[in-house]
């Protein structure tokens, strides 16, 4: 598979990146989880963020989405400084994430989960909540139709009315992506979405992800340990190791990179 978008190494002056992080640093007490990490995401791109366990990938996710306040550095999204904003405020700008440890609303059905995901599109005044008019009913209908369509896109149509706690591990990952998509993000950030999928499921999942760009979302940032998946979908890959950026480039360049191989596998015997 060839990438459809040409990866750009640096943001150009005239065109603003969708997301831009500068010198992100996160310390927990004496431990520095992420240090001076800078990167950007252009519209239309799928960026893979990889690195060995404990490299700081999830910490990075939490800083970008407001769940952690970075110790240092700035995050800009769509030209706005979003550093230190609350998670829900960042989500409302169109930056929506999934979680590494599967996070869905277990007691609700698949459909209800995805319908709840439409929260931002269906927000209404308190008055309209108690005395709904035609506009509210239409928004509700549209949300329900859209929820059903998203469940279908993610291949969960058969499980539409099953409570989430009855889903298999793989189905839960798909549901999580479905809930995130329901929030109609501009930039979708997935934290290990393929964990628990077998290689066939992961292949299908990768194909679904690629169809989303331009249709449902503007750009995608994906943290993933499944190398086949991340190499096949990503336009550009950023490698983190011990909280610092180790390498950045096209998948083919990263595969060739000696330092990356060493970070994952250790130094070759001399």
């Amino acid at each position, binding site marked *: 598979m060839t990438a459809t978008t040409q990866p750009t190494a640096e943001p150009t002056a005239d065109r603003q990146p969708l997301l831009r992080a500068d010198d992100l640093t996160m310390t927990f007490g004496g431990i520095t989880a992420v240090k001076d990490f800078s990167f950007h995401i252009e519209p239309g791109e799928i960026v893979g963020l990889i690195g060995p366990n404990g490299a700081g990938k999830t910490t990075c996710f939490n800083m970008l*989405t407001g*769940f952690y306040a970075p110790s240092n550095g700035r995050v800009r999204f769509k030209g706005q400084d979003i550093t230190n904003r*609350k998670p829900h405020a960042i989500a409302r700008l169109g930056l929506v994430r999934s979680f590494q440890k599967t996070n869905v*609303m277990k007691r609700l059905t698949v459909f209800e989960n995805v319908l709840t995901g439409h*929260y931002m599109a269906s927000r*209404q005044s308190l008055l309209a909540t*108690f005395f*709904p008019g035609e506009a509210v009913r239409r928004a*509700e209908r549209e949300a329900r139709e859209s929820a059903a369509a998203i469940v279908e896109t993610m291949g969960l149509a058969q499980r539409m009315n099953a409570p989430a706690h009855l889903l298999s591990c793989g189905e839960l990952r798909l549901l999580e992506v479905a809930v995130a998509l329901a929030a109609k993000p501009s930039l979708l950030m997935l934290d290990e979405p393929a964990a628990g999928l077998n290689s066939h499921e992961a292949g299908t999942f990768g194909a679904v992800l690629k169809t989303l760009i331009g249709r449902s979302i503007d750009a995608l940032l994906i943290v993933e340990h499944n190398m086949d998946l991340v190499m096949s979908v990503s336009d550009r890959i950023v490698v983190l190791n011990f909280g610092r950026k180790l390498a950045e480039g096209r998948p083919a360049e990263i595969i060739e990179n000696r330092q990356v191989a060493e970070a994952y596998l250790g130094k070759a015997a001399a």
Partner: protein
Amino acid sequence: MTLERNILLAFLAGAALLPFAVTDQYILHLAIMALFYAVLASSLNLVVGYVGEFSLGHTAFLGTGAYTAALLSTQAGMPMWVTIPLAGLVSAVFGFAIGAITLRLQGPYFVIVTLSFAEVLRIVANNWIAVTNGPMGLAGVGQNLFGDVAVTDKAGFFLIVLGIAAVALYFSYRFVYSNAGRAAVAVRENRYVAQSIGVDPFGTAMQAFVLGAFLAGLAGGFYAHYISFVGPEVFRFAFMATMIIMVLLGGKGTLIGPLAGAVIVTVLEEYLREVQELRLTLFGLIVMAIVLFLPNGLMGFIALRREQQAAKPTLNAAKERTV
């Protein structure tokens, strides 16, 4: 959702016929108390069942509403159609102030701090003698509905509390099945997911909390006029315990649950009068049994049975096909 709505409508319609069918004052009194508790339990359920935080301070709003109505009636001579809605509004303002502090906390911290707010209000009511008349309470709360038109019999009070219950159920129904209600459930089920889809947990919880305070205030206002007396005991934990039993027994997180719980507990309390002091012990045992065996209350139990019933026919159908 439609089923729940139809059951609620049928309940209200059936209840509206009661005063015409029953003239026994004692039974009407029980029915009035059952509906009064139904409003209280429904309002508590908005916080416990939909936001998922356990408030032990809900009597703060009941008492605020009761004192508001009693003061407006005894001091300014206002009729019920003014005092009861104002009682709800004043309670809602208190709800906003208390919520602004307590809703920043979760779990056991929230429980303790809400409890202490109710306790503080009780102490204020007990000691601010110039306004509340202290432990003596406010007696002789008027019973006029409009101007000089007084409510003289139990049937009249029954229709008033039925109207309040209808308002409470309407507001709860609209809230629960709206986008805002789904957001509250999202916060209850998973705070992280809620935030990642743009839900502000604090703001959402606040809406449910203030709505619950408003409805509890209406109930308190009604209580003041019906009993015609308000003392500091409206803030006491006994009301809170009764509300909790009703919500837990009926099933939290459903609209019918608190209603069913209120009716059952009110009737049970009367039946168990014979055993006197043993009554509270029995209620304690009932609560323990519910928590252990029916954690989702009666409604949760019924929903489970329905699911099992629904699953059976498909199994049978599958068997028939193989034969």
